[in-house]
């Protein structure tokens, strides 16, 4: 992973040195050629290609923006209805993510999607306590989180 990025960068600088073109366009051309070489050397890397990791990060951002827009409309509807027809509550969500980084990222994403707020992470770091604005269907909330965010985060970190 790190070795791949470093070799790609050094190939880009090598290309700039060969052509004597030290501008931004020279760097971009060199970087693309370096990426082609990194792909050609695929059998020699132990780790998977780092470009797939970049793609996974972009997908996570896309999923996040989609969830953000959809759930904000739901919350705006709750706020504007004349009587508060909501049933708030706190539910425990068991996560399969292991490292501190993954759990932090997941809880930040949950905090940012309207309608859910992370209140507490348990000592062992595998249960999140989430305050939901409308808890009519806990399993639905949990499934949604599991299918969208957790999957995408796993693709990024593993």
């Amino acid at each position, binding site marked *: 992973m790190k070795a791949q990025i470093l070799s790609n960068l050094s190939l880009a600088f090598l290309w700039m040195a060969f052509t004597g073109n030290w501008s931004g366009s020279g760097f971009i051309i060199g970087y693309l050629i370096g990426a082609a070489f990194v792909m050609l050397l695929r059998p020699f890397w132990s780790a998977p290609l780092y470009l797939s990791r970049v793609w996974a990060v972009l997908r996570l951002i896309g999923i996040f923006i989609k969830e953000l827009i959809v759930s904000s409309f739901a919350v705006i509807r709750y706020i504007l209805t004349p009587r508060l027809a909501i049933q708030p509550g706190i*539910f425990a969500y068991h996560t399969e993510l292991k490292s501190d980084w993954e759990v932090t990222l997941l809880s930040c994403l949950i*905090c940012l999607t309207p309608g859910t707020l992370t209140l507490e992470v348990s000592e062992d770091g595998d249960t999140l306590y989430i305050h939901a604005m409308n808890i009519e269907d806990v399993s639905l909330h949990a499934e949604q989180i599991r299918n969208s965010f957790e999957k995408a985060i796993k693709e990024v970190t593993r």
Partner: protein
Amino acid sequence: MAVISGISEWVIALLVLLGAVLSFLSAIGLVRLPDIYLRSHAATKGATLGVLCILSGAFLYLMLFLDILSVKLLLGIVFVFITSPVAGHLNGRAAYRSGVPLWEKSVQDDLRRDLNKEISKE
């Protein structure tokens, strides 16, 4: 070129207006909602989304009409995005730990159950 600048004007105006409306809605939520946790929902999300829309509108305006690529605005967007969920989480956690009650119509509370378990173990 005139068509492009016309379209981008509309997009920028809509972005800034949407951001203002979202901030206004979150202010309404702050007034209306009954307990700390629900108000914290409104404050965290409304501020984030509203500020995000307004800043991206300003960024596009500078880029398309004044030819300035403002990296400061992009960094501002990133920082708001990183810090606001943590602030919301810490407010909620501190309130819960110091015993602020939930709204009486709340349905379930798994955290109380597990915290009591912890205390009884000790």
